[in-house]
């Protein structure tokens, strides 16, 4: 038998959704074009990199638990995406290498980042928040060394196709991202491996008693997160027609908001793959909506920050109840 949720818990549960619904009503009323198919397509296209890195963060949180401090979190995924983008752009433009070779090198870099994160968390026993923050700072530094803090333009036809091409009448980037999201959903929510991953994050002790090698799943979650950073790099390159320094900051903000916002929309208020995807799309919709009605970009950042606080505080208060 479970105790009925307290009134405070019910209010906290409903708060993020209520705020978002009100925001969307406000945007729909104030922008003639917000509720239209072209805007939906624009929202989905702009959501692509955020969706991909949010898949990685969702996987780490599912494996490590949703406590922001002691649970699973990986703040280095956007930095991984940006360094991979820089490596590929550098290889394509400055060294005249092939896209495949650039992606191979970037895959190696992402693998190193994943191993370092996993090592710091599982073996050194650092809190994931600090470990991945430190990794992110280091990775951004290495990225600046690779790019010399300069933009590197890319005109590779595959990257251009991801940017401008269509598959079955839908933007290629959106279709490819949907395929990756489906694969992640299947892996995390429909396989035995995924069930064990969820068990690890749900209760580490219980999972260990059940014979699950929990450390192995935490390690694998960080490797998968780095993998999503690697996948995201081609979409980052496509979106910006090259590698631009400084792109990781906005991506980090949107990734954290999207992933925890997704949890607020799930029936059990837990982080899920589809929740992360929905969260990323909603965050993109907010960005497009705010810009469309002329909200100052600084207010947009402020609102996003406040929403992160709201969804994380709601989750924390819910656990405390």
């Amino acid at each position, binding site marked *: 038998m479970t105790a009925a949720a307290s009134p405070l818990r019910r209010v906290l549960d409903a708060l993020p959704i209520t705020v978002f619904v009100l925001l969307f009503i406000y945007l729909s009323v104030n922008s003639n074009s917000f509720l239209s198919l072209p805007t939906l397509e624009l929202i989905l296209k702009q959501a692509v990199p955020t969706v991909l890195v949010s898949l990685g963060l969702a996987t780490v949180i599912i494996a490590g638990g949703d406590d922001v401090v002691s649970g699973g979190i990986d703040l280095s995924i956007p930095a991984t995406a940006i360094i991979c983008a820089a490596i590929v752009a550098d290889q394509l433009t400055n060294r005249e290498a092939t896209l495949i070779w650039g992606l191979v090198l970037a895959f190696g870099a992402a693998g190193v980042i994943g191993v370092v994160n996993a090592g710091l968390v599982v073996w050194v026993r650092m809190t994931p928040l600090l470990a991945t923050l430190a990794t992110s700072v280091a990775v951004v530094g290495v990225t600046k060394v690779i790019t010399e803090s300069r933009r590197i333009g890319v005109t590779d036809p595959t990257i251009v196709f991801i940017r401008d091409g269509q598959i079955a009448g839908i933007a290629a980037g959106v279709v490819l991202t949907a395929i990756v999201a489906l694969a992640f959903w299947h892996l995390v929510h429909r396989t035995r491996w995924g069930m064990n991953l969820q068990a690890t994050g749900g209760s580490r002790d219980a999972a260990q008693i059940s014979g699950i090698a929990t450390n192995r799943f935490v390690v694998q979650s960080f490797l998968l997160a780095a993998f999503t950073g690697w996948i995201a790099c081609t979409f980052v390159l496509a979106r910006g027609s090259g590698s631009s320094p400084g*792109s990781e900051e906005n991506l980090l903000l949107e990734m954290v908001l999207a992933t925890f916002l997704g949890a607020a929309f799930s029936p059990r208020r837990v982080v899920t793959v589809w929740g992360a995807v929905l969260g990323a799309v909603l965050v993109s919709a907010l960005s497009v909506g705010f810009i469309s009605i002329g909200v100052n970009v600084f207010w947009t950042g402020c609102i996003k920050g406040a929403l992160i606080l709201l969804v994380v505080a709601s989750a924390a208060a819910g656990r405390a109840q």
Partner: protein
Amino acid sequence: MNYTTKLLAALAMSVSVAGMAAADGHANLEGKTIGVAVVGTQHFWDREAFNGAVDTVKELGGTVVPVDGGRDNQVHADNHDILLNQGVDAVISILGDGAVEPKFEALKNAGIPVFTVDHQSPHAVNNTTSDNYYMGTTIGRYMADAIGGEGKVAVFNAFEGALRICGIRTGLWKYVLQDYPGIEIIQPELAEEFANAPEDARKKTLDLLSQYPEGTLDAIHVGCWDQPAIGIVQALEEAGRTDVLVTALDGGPDTLEIMAEDGSPFVANVAQQPNLIGSTAARNVAAHFAGETLLPQTFVDVFPVNGQAEAKAAYKELGYGSLD
């Protein structure tokens, strides 16, 4: 003719040239919705160019859809998709790197004319910009003179390959220095960050000073703008190395104030008129809709500023107030 008189004459001429686009009275923007996209509004130059464009569109009867990239080139580029989606009649795009090119192309293909500011593009009807050629050569001469025609010079040069205007300014600065064989540009060149330029330049300058002790570095130049120069001067003052001279480009009020201080190491600059540039771009949009044929580029005059006295004069004449 003294510096102030020359400055006033040039100002009057540049204002009249800029106004020619809409001078015939029938060029207006009534009934038109104009998207104005700016890469950021944190810095004086960007903000003034943006304000100039927005105010002039309104003055000419148009409706403005403003979008601000928050000093993030990617967000700035993405904002053009929103303007395309909103079906504006024309777009004025201020700054931005190569990420905006596909967006310009999409706007052009949708029949929306693009007018750029400080960004040459094959997809734009017109680019309004300062006389970058004059800026590059003048600052080269001023810097060479300031260090007596010889010495070691470090350069912050992050954007020479990414932005054509920076390619022109820094390229011509280097071209001038070819005639000064005694001047050596320290390699590798430095690259400043776009978003946090003053603080980033301060740190990099402190590193540079530790590598080049007193007497081994003569000047630091910023190749395309002057926000990093704020941090460079801070670092020189922190390290007690104000013997190292600083030169840069843009000449906003913040850097002119630094130049006007007694004993400032910041000795030369070239001041632009960002508000007039933005305003001119808006008038070019009106001229385009009035059926006039525009040249690919509209150049707005710049004002070389050499030393403390000229910094004070330029500050006053450009309408920033008085430093006396």
